[in-house]
């Protein structure tokens, strides 16, 4: 039993305390779990403390919650999502054999799920008042804020020991610089962690001028988040109730005044500055060097290809510019066609070119071509349509069916010897239409409709047909380069393909010389060149986006400074100078290195500091039970509430330290207790954790569950938000947006000067000040949401659609209950549902009836509350 392990554990910290009266400032006193009379109920140390208190008041604990209640409770608790039907069934089955082992297995599974960090990371983001905007007068978007958000989620998933988590957030940048070996990934993580400080709220028209308010916000959040102290009270005068002096306050102030915060820009001072590169400068220099070398390589490749293309094209043009023999020509008026036929003596490599030109008007010159060629002995045959139709884009020149890669080519005939170089995979988005066109130009072009049906494009284009379209200023051509020497007979057709305008003219010519090599190279080269140019461009763009974090760094050594106390909190009334230092309450040491952040982190993240472990242990307890052992989680000072179970709190804090600050271990300690697994109840026992207190789903849980039930939740971990590139915001025209996506709610964009309607309505965290515990309201405007909200209606309809795969009405009803409530419907509920569906279908229709019934289910108290 794990209780035994701490039984003799001794606390040895020697800590000088400014106050030996207030409980929270005294050293942790690790008590042994008390002995109790009740037999059978207690399972863990937690239970002993809870039971002892109940017994002392002659109260009895509730029995254990049902398996279904339990798995719904713990799944929401650890992941913020409902259990699946299978998870419920598996647990119930396993629990038949060994309920404790089955539950422990569920806990392990949930703690290992990436969904865990999304839920518990959000709890921490509440405490650190996370937002994606800066909060000054135009509420500037902060592009890199998301990195800190994802860091927090990942830290919870990886179970980063909480003391390390504190050190990273306060001084990750210093650790990254001083640690022996830091991988690039680790470096980036350590830099990102200090987003904890950088996301402090910005103020005013020129946020640099009002930076003192940002430091005040930092100190306020620091005190509440790690120490449960309202240090901010000492800004204007010594704290009235707690042993925190104004000197303490300005001792911390100097530490943050010696820290450089990433600056998001503001109306009065726009440039974004001091973002922190994710990689160290040395690595950065290496990266830049590598980048430059690659750029030189790519630039050279492009130049070489350009030269080659020019040379090849020149060869083709030169050959094609020699005198030609005209074999036939004609004019095709609109809605007509002309056939041609000839017998020609050719040398291998000679070219026969069929050229189609515009007349006065070129707008409707789509022209159908057919062209067959046969050798005199009829052994070899070529057919333009059949040879190219199903794979036009395979090449230009295009192979014939005999393996001659150069046989057919498609030419921009406005000049001699120019190939059409750009492939078009779907002309005007019609998939069967493929074409070759001149680079950068719409026309001329050679095209096929490879499909089996006509395509309604600019005109109706018949299936399985080859087309050309000349340009406004000149013709297009198809050429056949002969692989053979001897007599060949040609026949073909030129047919108007778009019955408007004034038709086209055409001619058939023979070109002497060997074109086989000359036409074979240019297109491939052009494509290579395009690829090389694209690679160069992509590479150049990469440098522009050097990854940075919205984080902090140390000021230059000559700017590290102590500050003068601000009289009455007014920076314009300086008082005496105060050295950078720790709170007297925690030892009062002065800073000896840099800004002092690393030392501050060490003073806070130590087992010698009784507040840190107590505060986080209380937060963990609070999220599991809906209220803290200390009901003021951000205030452990004399104005906060004393713990209901001081010994238990100290035992949990001690356990946390013993388990090397593992939050996941603390979860197990709590979740495997009988206390956590107790049935819901009421009355005095419930107030002392003798029965479980049902809790309402949070705004995030509500939205995520709705998306889950409708099958539209996207579980990927997104990065930033689609913020506008320009930052011309002003107080007259501040940044405002409400981006939508279907990722989990923790990834929704959080703004400081306006809240998301869903978050405002269902009591989301305050993005401007630390939220220790959300204050849940219960108001009619929330009921209106369930009645009429568009998103809710959409998700309910989606849920109804998802049910439709079930074979019967009753099966659908059952599935809906299992998914939404984690239990099957009772007979009475089945009867009610049938009755409702029948009545609603009669008044509307069946689809609407199912959606409406799903809304009823989603509107129910049982759905919205976890027992």
């Amino acid at each position: 039993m794990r209780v035994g392990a701490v039984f003799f554990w001794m606390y040895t910290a020697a800590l000088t305390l400014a106050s030996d009266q207030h409980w929270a400032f005294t050293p942790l006193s690790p008590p042994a779990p008390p002995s109790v009379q009740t037999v059978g109920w207690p399972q863990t140390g937690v239970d002993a403390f809870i039971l002892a208190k109940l017994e002392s008041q002659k109260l009895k604990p509730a029995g254990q919650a049902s398996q279904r209640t339990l798995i719904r409770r713990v799944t929401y608790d650890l992941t913020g999502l409902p259990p699946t039907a299978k998870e419920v069934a598996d647990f119930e089955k396993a629990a038949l054999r060994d309920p404790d082992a089955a539950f422990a297995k569920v806990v392990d599974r949930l703690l290992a799920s990436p969904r865990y960090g999304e839920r518990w990371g959000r709890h921490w983001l509440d405490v650190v008042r996370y937002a994606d905007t800066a909060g000054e007068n135009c509420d500037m978007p902060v592009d890199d804020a998301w990195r800190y958000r994802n860091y927090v989620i990942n830290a919870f998933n990886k179970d980063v020991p909480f003391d390390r988590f504190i050190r990273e957030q306060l001084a990750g940048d210093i650790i990254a610089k001083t640690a022996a070996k830091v991988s690039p990934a680790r470096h980036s993580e350590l830099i990102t962690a200090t987003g904890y400080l950088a996301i402090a709220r910005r103020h005013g028209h020129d946020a640099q001028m009002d930076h003192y308010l940002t430091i005040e916000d930092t100190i306020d959040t620091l005190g509440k988040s790690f120490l449960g102290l309202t240090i901010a009270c000492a800004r204007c005068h010594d704290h009235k109730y707690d042993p925190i002096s104004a000197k303490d306050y300005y001792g911390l102030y100097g530490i943050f005044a010696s820290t450089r915060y990433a600056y998001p820009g503001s109306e009065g001072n726009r440039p974004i500055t001091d973002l922190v590169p994710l990689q160290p400068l040395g690595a950065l220099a290496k990266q830049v060097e590598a980048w430059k070398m690659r750029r030189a390589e790519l630039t050279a490749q492009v130049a070489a290809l350009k030269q080659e293309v020019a040379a090849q094209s020149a060869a083709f043009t030169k050959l094609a510019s020699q005198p030609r023999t005209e074999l036939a020509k004609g004019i095709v008026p609109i809605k007509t066609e002309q056939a041609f036929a000839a017998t020609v003596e050719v040398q291998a490599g000679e070219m026969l070119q069929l050229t189609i030109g515009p007349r006065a008007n070129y707008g409707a010159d789509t022209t159908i071509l057919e062209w067959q060629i046969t050798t005199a002995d009829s052994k070899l045959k070529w057919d333009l349509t059949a040879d190219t139709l199903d794979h036009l884009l395979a090449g230009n020149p295009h192979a014939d069916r005999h393996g001659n890669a150069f046989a057919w080519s498609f030419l921009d005939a406005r000049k001699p010897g120019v190939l059409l170089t750009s492939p078009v995979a779907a002309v005007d988005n019609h998939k069967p239409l493929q074409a070759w066109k001149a680079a950068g130009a719409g026309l001329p072009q050679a095209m096929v409709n490879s499909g089996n049906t006509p395509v309604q494009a600019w005109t109706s284009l018949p299936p399985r047909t080859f087309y050309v379209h000349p340009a406004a200023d000149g013709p297009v051509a198809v050429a056949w380069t002969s692989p053979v020497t001897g007599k060949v007979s040609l026949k073909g057709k030129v047919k108007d393909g778009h019955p408007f305008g004034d038709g086209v003219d055409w001619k058939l010519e023979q070109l002497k010389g060997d074109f086989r090599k000359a036409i074979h190279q240019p297109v491939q080269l052009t494509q290579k060149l395009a690829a090389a140019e694209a690679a160069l461009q992509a590479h150049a763009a990469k440098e522009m986006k050097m990854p940075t974090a919205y984080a902090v760094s140390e000021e230059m050594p000559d700017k590290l400074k102590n500050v003068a106390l601000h009289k009455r909190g007014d920076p314009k009334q300086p008082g005496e100078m105060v050295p950078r230092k720790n709170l007297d309450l925690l030892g009062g040491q002065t800073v000896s290195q840099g800004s002092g952040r690393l030392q501050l982190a060490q003073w806070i993240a130590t087992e010698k500091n009784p507040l840190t472990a107590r505060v986080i242990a209380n937060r963990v307890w609070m999220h599991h039970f809906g209220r803290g052992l200390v009901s003021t989680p951000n205030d452990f000072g004399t104005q906060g509430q004393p713990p209901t179970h001081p010994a238990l709190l100290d035992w949990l804090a001690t356990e946390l330290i013993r388990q090397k600050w593992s939050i996941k271990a603390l979860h197990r300690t709590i979740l495997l207790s009988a206390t956590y697994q107790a049935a819901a109840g009421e009355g005095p026992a419930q107030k002392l954790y003798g029965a479980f207190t049902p809790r309402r789903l949070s705004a995030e849980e509500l939205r995520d569950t709705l998306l889950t039930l409708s099958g539209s939740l996207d579980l990927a971990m997104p990065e930033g938000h689609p913020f506008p590139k320009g930052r011309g915001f002003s107080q007259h025209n501040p940044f405002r947006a409400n981006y939508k996506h279907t990722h989990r709610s923790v990834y929704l964009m959080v703004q400081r000067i306006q809240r998301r309607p869903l978050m405002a309505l269902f009591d989301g965290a305050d993005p401007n000040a630390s939220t220790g515990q959300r204050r849940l309201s219960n108001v009619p405007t929330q009921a209106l949401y369930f009645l009429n909200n568009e998103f809710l209606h959409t998700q309910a309809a989606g849920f109804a659609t998802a049910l439709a795969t079930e074979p019967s009405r009753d099966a659908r009803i059952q599935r809906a209950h299992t998914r939404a409530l984690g239990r099957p419907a009772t007979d009475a509920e089945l009867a009610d549902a049938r009755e409702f569906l029948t009545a609603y279908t009669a008044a509307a229709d069946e689809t609407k009836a199912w959606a409406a019934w799903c809304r009823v289910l989603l509107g129910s108290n049982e759905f919205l509350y976890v027992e």
Partner: protein
Amino acid sequence: MNTFRYNPNRRHFLRSMTAGSVLMPALVSEMLGAEGGDPLAPRRPHFSPRAKRVIFINLSGGVSHIDTFDRKPELIASHGKEIAKGDHPEIQNRPGYERIFLKRTQWDFKKYGQCGKEVSALFPEVGRCVDDIAFINSMHTSHSNHYNATLGMHTGSFTVSRPSIGAWVSYGLGTENRNLPSFMVLASQSPYAGGQVWGSDFLPGAHQGTRVQPGPMPVPNIAPRVPRNLQELELAALRKRNQRHLQTGPANPELAARMRAFETAFGMQMAVPEVFDFKAETDATHALYGLKRGQANGFGWQCLAARRLAERGVRFIELIHTGSAGNWDSHGNMMDHERLAKQVDRPIYGLITDLKSRGLLDDTLVVWTTEFGRTPFNNKADAPGREHHNWAFTTFLAGGGVKGGVTHGATDEIGLKAVDHPVHTHDFHATILHLLGLDHERLTHFHDGRDFRLTDVEGHVVKEILA
């Protein structure tokens, strides 16, 4: 193991009493209310109030005091005279502002009413109400930026966000009408500092302002998406489900309160559109507000809607004229004031007159304000605009226990500084709370280890304007 707990108590008695009806009668809702811990339940003020509700008119951008209700003959006489720069926050280190000159008003003033208050040609209609109005000509505030001054005028804080005055009033007094939110903000555009202006911050969320935008969905989620008969079917099914759940689980007042919230929400769907449907208002009333029949926008619409909300017991109604852009911020040209004044002058007159004729002005406090004033100088005497000015501005109060026909405090001879009985925004807030029967030093909320107030550690009630 789930144990079945059943306590035949008052709750169950009430529940069974209403089990047959689709909707719980309002009476029962009230009876259950006390148990549900409703944050909006009506609460007694600290002392006998003069006003029960507030209509808070906020003209965004900074309305000039010297061109409206604070006539300065000396400024007119000294037009063009150079004055010392001093430490005015708007012209420190500002290029082009090395020298400054006095600039007269371009509007004539006229005496109005029995009291003879001088009002400029920008507000002739408001001029007709001066005998019901207490002007404060000695207002001053702590910041010369719109964002900060607007935040200060609403929350008492010029830097970080704090609860809005409307949220404080809702927190202090609760609501008289559960079918409507207690704090409603009629604003077609977003103001400076955005939603923080009506936020509840650390006060319970139920006290945050509900923003109303003219249009088919004035309040979010108010328009039903299914016909009423079908919605009743859904609500009946929901109620049955919830009742069954309530009876099988441990007693939980929250769950009962949520059931009640659905009944209220159902009612709101009717009540809210009814407020914004002006069909029953006469032509004469429309004309009083300068509103065309069927018109559903403009400041006249906002004012008439405000009267209807006041009649229905909404505690705090804010009307924002314009927003963070296209507003009274007339740096470029003071003639903008004329265009904007035309939009609000008649509706404000209409509102005060209408409230008075219906007997509502006695317990409705009308507040007229802006975030700061405008400079009586500029860098050229013939500069067409005026700059931000937090050293002096004018506000007024009417009805709800306020003396009519008085002007409190004064600026110096050129309207530069509030010199006689200066009134800070904190004092302004203390006075509004006082009229509502709330002591600004006792209306507190414990948060972060201390008690917070709307007026921070400042604020004096302006007793001179109390009737």
